[in-house]
């Protein structure tokens, strides 16, 4: 089952991040390929995404169901394909990071180190990321944060998708490399938005 994790840090406290993240209407447009979403109730929503499956672009409808909701800490959810045989889920986790030294310009921290992949796989990932950027545009450029920050938070996003049915092995081969840039994109767009709003950094000026 293809699964990816991406994490970023922000010079903002968890309450600020949570205030934004808890309402999916705030960040829904940041989801890769977002077309629309419909909130059914407190736990369920239906999403329409336009995803690049290999070479062409296709609409996928997914039902998202929230299975765990811990204020200012985590949201866990499952995903069920409505028009494709695909299932998955993920978790959005917020945690505190040690405050950085005052007066030191801060760039977004890199994600946690992962086991180094086989060269061929990295080459495929590089290619997919390049194609992804070509189709969806460059991700948000984040500036060094101002020096007034006192709190740091880490936002991590784990996403897994598994295509089922007879074509599953083929679809998973295509989905796998596309997930990582999607997770990275969402986390970075949320971070860039919050930094712009709360710290006055202007991603557009980058």
């Amino acid at each position: 089952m293809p699964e990816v994790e991406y994490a970023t840090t922000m010079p903002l406290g968890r309450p600020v991040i949570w205030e934004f993240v808890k309402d999916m209407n705030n960040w829904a447009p940041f989801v890769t390929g977002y077309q629309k979403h419909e909130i059914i109730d407190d736990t369920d929503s239906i999403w329409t995404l336009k995803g690049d499956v290999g070479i062409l672009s296709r609409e996928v409808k997914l039902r998202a169901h929230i299975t765990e909701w811990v204020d200012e800490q985590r949201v866990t959810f499952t995903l069920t394909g409505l028009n494709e045989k695909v299932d998955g889920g993920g978790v959005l986790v917020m945690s505190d990071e040690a405050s950085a030294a005052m007066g030191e310009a801060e760039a977004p921290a890199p994600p946690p180190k992962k086991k180094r992949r086989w060269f061929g796989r990295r080459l495929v990932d590089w290619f997919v990321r390049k194609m992804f950027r070509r189709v969806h545009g460059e991700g948000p450029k984040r500036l060094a944060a101002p020096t007034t920050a006192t709190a740091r938070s880490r936002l991590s996003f784990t996403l897994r998708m598994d295509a089922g049915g007879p074509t599953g092995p083929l679809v998973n081969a295509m989905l796998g490399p596309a997930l990582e840039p999607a997770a990275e994109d969402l986390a970075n767009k949320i971070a860039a938005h919050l930094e712009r709003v709360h710290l006055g950094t202007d991603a557009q000026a980058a």
Partner: protein
Amino acid sequence: MFHSRRMWFRKSRAWSLEVDLVVIGSGAAGATAALAAHAGKARVAVLEKSAKFGGTTAVSGGVVWVPNNKHMPEVGIPDSMDEAVSYVTRLADGRSDPALIRRYLEVAPQMIEFIEGATPIVFKALARYPDYHPEFPGGKPGGRSLDPGLYDTNQLGAWKDKLRKSPVFGMTAMSVTEATDWGVFSKPSALPFALLGKRFKQGLVCYGGALCGGLLEALLARGIEPMLSTPVHELIVEDDRVAGVRAEQGGKELLIKARKGVVLASGGFEWNAELAARFLGGPLTHPNSPPGNDGDGLRMAMSLGADLGNMTEAWWCPSLDIPGEEYDQRQLHRGDFATRSLPHSVIVNRQGQRFVNEAHNYNDMMKAFFAFDPVSYDRPNLPAWIVIDAQYLERYALLTYVPGMPIPDWLIKADTVEALAEKIGVDARGLVATLARFNRFAVEGADPDFRRGESLYDHFYGDPSRVEHGGNPNLGTIEKAPFYAIQVHPGAIGTKGGPRTDGDARVLRPGGEPIAGLYAAGNVAAGVTGAGYPGAGATIGAAMTFGYLAGRHAAAAPATK
């Protein structure tokens, strides 16, 4: 006698680049022309309008139709020039020069020898892929269509991601031979999807991607780097001959001198609604090719006074849409080859009536969609619908659907035939009567109305397991609810009308004399097969043959100063 702008070029020309031959377009016609010219010691530039190499060929099946090819003996199928000429002449229906037909059939086998010598491609004769009218005199049960096999795109190095990928075949790397053996349409659940996933990860491609990959590798090996994203806007004429082109790259104008000539290999005009409406014999609304095929080559040839031929014709293909599916930022129109040929499916018009052998070859069956009623002054067979039942979806593939997957929401569904008819705006009584009659034929195993399932060609896209049980591989009842429908649209793989050419692919004036320095090959030119579609790969076979002739002739032509 020249346009003032051309005169301006002549007086103040400052060539950005000078070569012997400029090839406009990077499909099989253009690539073959470039390789043939290079083999004749010519310096070649290949200009491609889009950001990807391969043109229409790259999204196609990649099969090359060549009678008397060197691989036919390997599969034990004999052939002869007389048979091939007789067969193609009948299908051309008087719309092609007999001398040109003969020239094509004589040279095509040489072209295959050349390509196999100049590229890594080794073709395999498809013994079970029949000609599209195999029962006609000179028709064959197989062997004339050649499969390029699989291609490893890693061989292209940095050019790997510049090879155009087919939106339909680009993700399932299986050769045509394998697709046939595995029953890609009739036994889709049994396909080795794990193997296909592995091949996808490895960078293997098939069909048109494989053919274009091999051609591109050969070009790169010769130092010919195609100039992508470089549209050509105008042919430059000097001293009454085509002497170069005015192109554009990155917003800058490029004037490229062509000392020996220019080959138009830029594809058809199927995406140009205005040209399609002006020339074609039917309303082409859903082309299957890349959207860049907008008739720029045709316009350039017309601007120099080229004679035109076969302008009403296209490589017609019924097309189906999955809403929201896009390729090159346009709605993708998928050609339908099997849905209409498999049991438990039928095509009806708005009266709910059948009007054609649904399983017949895509080019010729499409023409029945354009039937014109002079009294009502309309086309009664448009719009048309494919109607299937639950039995179909239990067994067979339909576009992206494979049994075991959720029923697609792009299929219109109803629990009764009458309700389905109402949903799609078809006469309900007509549809009920049609299905009752069709079901009787299905049980009897014969279709006296339209002869579906009589031809070996029909069988190729049918369900062979039916034959094993003594049935008709193309017929099955439509009686098990729910019932489903999808609209079938007039589409085409490409147009095949354009400038007339001679036996060396030189573009001709109305008087029959060539326009010096101008060649045309592929869908931009008047198709040598006229109205017909002789067999799988007849598009590419003719395109490569006339590309080969153009490149060879141009290389041997005297260079202008």
